[in-house]
């Protein structure tokens, strides 16, 4: 990612866009922030917000005509916020807290003719910028028409305060000036730049034709002259319009004095549109709290209650749904910036590595985002870059890649024509996880397919390469896919019948030349088997896998099959194209185990009934728990009468590892009658352990087979430690990179495992 790509991505995320009120405010007062402070009774902080943006808050805060109000999102679920009256409350109960700084004097003779609120604002802003202004009015006081219009709302002392403020910033104030055309004409000579406030300055006194005013800069046709304020067309008088014009003119005049462009980058000045996206669904309605005494305004209690109605407009639509973004407390804009910074580190700790590797690459956020922010694409591309530049932490995906290699290897992989045939029209591809989770179901569904499809249906036990792709291992992934395509080619290019949505997505995207069909769509078109388990009376909640997000036909077939077999089902609160990942996608649960658990819980929590139905093996594995009953649809169709699909135990990493190899061995012997191959001697070691130890091994990503290897090595070489106090043994073995340790004791016909752990740090090779 380079800087221009970063900027383009950042621009897609709208979380930092102005809320509707701020965008609609001509001077962009942070009304949302103000409401938050007032709701918490943090009056000083509230006042700071006004002091920061408003010219003369003691005046403007009392009489703001709240042009923001029609844009307040609260209106969709109640009445819009009474922002004006709340500002009035704030300035009534606080004095100035924050005084914006005054910049060093830069020179330039500046005059403001007319001391209405726009003239006062222009004089204030210019004086703060280091261009002390001379503010000239024919009246005996400041404010132009304001004091007459506002009446009792504005106590006279606020104008004294304003005068003091102006003088404090170095402005010169001339009241009661006798102005005629000749005097004004002389000002054109005397001053470099002049602002005319139409609320307080009589246009008839202009020594030149006022002509048209530039709407962006407020420049008049006369060089160095600017004009604004007063009443705009036939609109009613607006004090906010005065403030906006004064501020806009001050910026133009400053730029004029600097000799730079008056028009560049002024799009967000004044009331402007915002791309903010806020969903109000689910927020309870609330009506406006009005002041019991309109003359006195809000009491403290009323103000707090009214401010608390603010819904603090923001987007965060993706974050609301995604366990990953919630975990790292990021929204896409901040996330990509962290990723960019992480990649820029030359020396030092790349502290965002874990974050980059924790995304499930599921695309849910992209579907939710009004601008389709591609978080998955960014995380995936970054992983590829990390691998390519040698910055991928070796342990992040080692386990999953090890399992992939094992699945592709001779222990598990198999590709055969249907027994008794020499050609295949179809090739059943159950996928690595289904084969590991439900080997019996895979066998029964294969047999069923062979009975119902013509033209020969081969079997292909392998892996689509998704783990390599998710890990950012582009080369490895490409090799896996290329080998797979070669094998399919050698089988005569049959059509793959694919059970897993992830495999289907991978083939669709990366191997478009392969003929593939979803198992669910194939089954939906066939007569379905007789159901051999007690169909529940209450509906099961269907959990779509995240990889079926773009597989509408698959999702429809699954529902059609359920209807045909009379399995009552209902939908999740969020599913279909918005489905969450269970934690397996993107190898999330390997790079970040605790987060994987949270993702599974979040997905399971979308259920609308007590029991669920998955059609992805990993969804079922991750969501099934002591409290959640969850069936896999294939297991419902081809149920083993002895095992209830809803309550079958979770298989676990070691179980899946073991069953993949056993499935191959069994099918070779039952279907193809091959002589049994001898398996590695360590596999014969009988190992008992408590459930607690099983869980510990899972958490540490250690397979039971790893422990068998340690014990086999120790017992055949006699190299182990011994604890005479309890008879236990402790040994280690390093098959490749990781050193595994097993603490165990001999039992009758095997061993009892008491603990297992591993490390990647290398010890010096000991003499044996």
């Amino acid at each position: 990612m380079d800087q221009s790509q970063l900027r383009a991505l950042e621009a897609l995320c709208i979380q930092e866009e102005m809320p509707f009120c701020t965008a609609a405010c001509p001077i962009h007062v942070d009304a949302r922030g103000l409401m938050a402070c007032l709701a918490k009774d943090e009056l000083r902080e509230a006042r700071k917000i006004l002091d920061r943006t408003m010219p003369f808050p003691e005046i403007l805060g009392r009489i703001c005509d709240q042009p923001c109000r029609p844009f307040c999102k609260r209106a969709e679920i109640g009445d819009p916020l009474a922002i004006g009256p709340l500002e009035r409350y704030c300035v009534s109960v606080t004095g100035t807290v924050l005084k914006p700084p005054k910049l060093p004097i830069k020179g330039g003779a500046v005059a403001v003719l007319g001391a209405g609120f726009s003239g006062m604002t222009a004089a204030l802003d210019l004086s703060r910028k280091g261009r002390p202004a001379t503010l000239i009015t024919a009246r005996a006081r400041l404010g132009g028409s304001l004091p007459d219009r506002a009446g009792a709302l504005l106590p006279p002392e606020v104008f004294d305060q304003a005068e003091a403020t102006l003088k404090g910033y170095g402005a010169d104030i001339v009241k009661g000036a006798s102005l005629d055309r000749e005097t004004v004409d002389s000002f054109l000579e005397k001053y470099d730049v002049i602002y005319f406030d139409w609320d307080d300055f009589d246009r008839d006194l202009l020594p030149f034709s006022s002509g048209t005013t530039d709407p962006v800069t407020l420049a008049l046709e006369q060089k160095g002259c600017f004009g604004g304020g007063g009443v705009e067309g036939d609109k009613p008088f607006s004090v906010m319009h005065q403030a906006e014009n004064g501020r806009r003119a001050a910026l133009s005049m400053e730029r004029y004095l600097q000799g730079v462009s008056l028009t560049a980058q002024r799009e967000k000045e004044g009331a402007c549109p915002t791309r903010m996206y806020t969903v109000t669904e689910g927020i309870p309605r609330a009506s406006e709290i009005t002041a019991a005494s309109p003359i006195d305004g809000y009491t403290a209690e009323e103000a707090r209650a009214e401010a608390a109605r603010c819904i603090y407009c923001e987007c965060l639509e993706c974050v609301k749904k995604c366990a990953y973004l919630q975990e790292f407390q990021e929204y896409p804009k901040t996330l990509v910036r962290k990723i960019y910074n992480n990649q820029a580190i030359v020396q030092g700790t790349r502290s965002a590595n874990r974050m980059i590797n924790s995304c499930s690459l599921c695309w849910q956020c992209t579907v939710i985002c009004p601008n389709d922010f591609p978080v998955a694409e960014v995380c995936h591309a970054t992983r590829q870059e990390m691998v390519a530049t040698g910055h991928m932490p070796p342990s992040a995906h080692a386990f999953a890649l090890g399992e992939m290699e094992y699945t592709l290897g001779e222990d598990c992989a198999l590709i055969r024509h249907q027994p008794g045939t020499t050609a295949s029209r179809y090739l059943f591809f159950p996928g690595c996880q289904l084969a590991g989770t439900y080997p019996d179901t895979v066998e029964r569904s294969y047999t069923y397919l062979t009975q119902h499809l013509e033209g020969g249906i081969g079997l292909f036990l392998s892996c689509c390469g998704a783990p390599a792709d998710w890990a950012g291992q582009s080369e490895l992934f490409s090799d896996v896919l290329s080998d797979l395509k070669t094998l399919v080619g050698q089988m005569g290019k049959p059509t793959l019948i694919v059970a897993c949505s992830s495999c289907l997505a991978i083939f669709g995207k990366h191997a478009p030349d392969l003929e593939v069909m979803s198992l669910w769509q194939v089954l939906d078109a066939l007569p379905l088997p007789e159901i051999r388990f007690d169909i529940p009376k209450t509906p099961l909640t269907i959990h779509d896998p995240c990889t079926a997000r773009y597989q509408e036909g698959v999702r429809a077939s699954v529902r059609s099959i359920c209807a045909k077999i009379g399995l009552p089902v209902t939908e999740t609160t969020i599913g279909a194209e918005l489905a969450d990942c269970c934690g397996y996608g993107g190898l999330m649960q390997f790079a970040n185990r605790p987060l994987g658990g949270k993702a599974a819980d979040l997905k399971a929590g979308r259920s609308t009934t007590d029991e669920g139905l998955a059609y992805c093996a990993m969804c079922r594995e991750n969501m099934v728990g002591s409290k959640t009953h969850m069936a896999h649809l294939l297991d419902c169709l081809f149920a083993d009468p002895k095992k209830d699909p809803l309550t079958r135990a979770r298989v676990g990493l070691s179980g899946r590892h073991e069953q993949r190899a056993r499935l191959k061995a069994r099918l070779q012997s039952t279907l193809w009658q091959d002589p049994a191959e001898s398996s590695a001697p360590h596999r014969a070691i009988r190992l008992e352990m408590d459930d607690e130890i099983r869980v510990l091994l899972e958490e540490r990503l250690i397979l039971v087979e790893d422990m068998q290897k340690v014990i086999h090595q120790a017992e055949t070489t006699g190299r182990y430690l011994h604890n005479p106090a309890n008879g236990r043994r402790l040994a280690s073995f390093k098959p490749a990179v990781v050193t595994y340790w097993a603490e165990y004791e001999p039992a009758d016909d095997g061993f009892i495992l008491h603990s297992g752990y591993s490390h990647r740090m290398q010890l010096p090779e000991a003499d044996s």
Partner: protein
Amino acid sequence: MSTFSFAEATEWRCAACDQPLQPAKVRVTYLNSVFNVELMVCPACDFILVPENLATGKMLEVEQLLEDK
């Protein structure tokens, strides 16, 4: 380079040599980094003990730190 000691009295004995373990300096390495540490080792055959709390604690912490360098 300073040596950190992780040597702690232990009931583990080397089964092959029938020896109690003794503290000894060991060079452990990971991702181009070398650390001199003191661990419990069999004085006869150099069997090195990495106790569970070390492997899942400090050692893991350092491994992860080095992986993010």
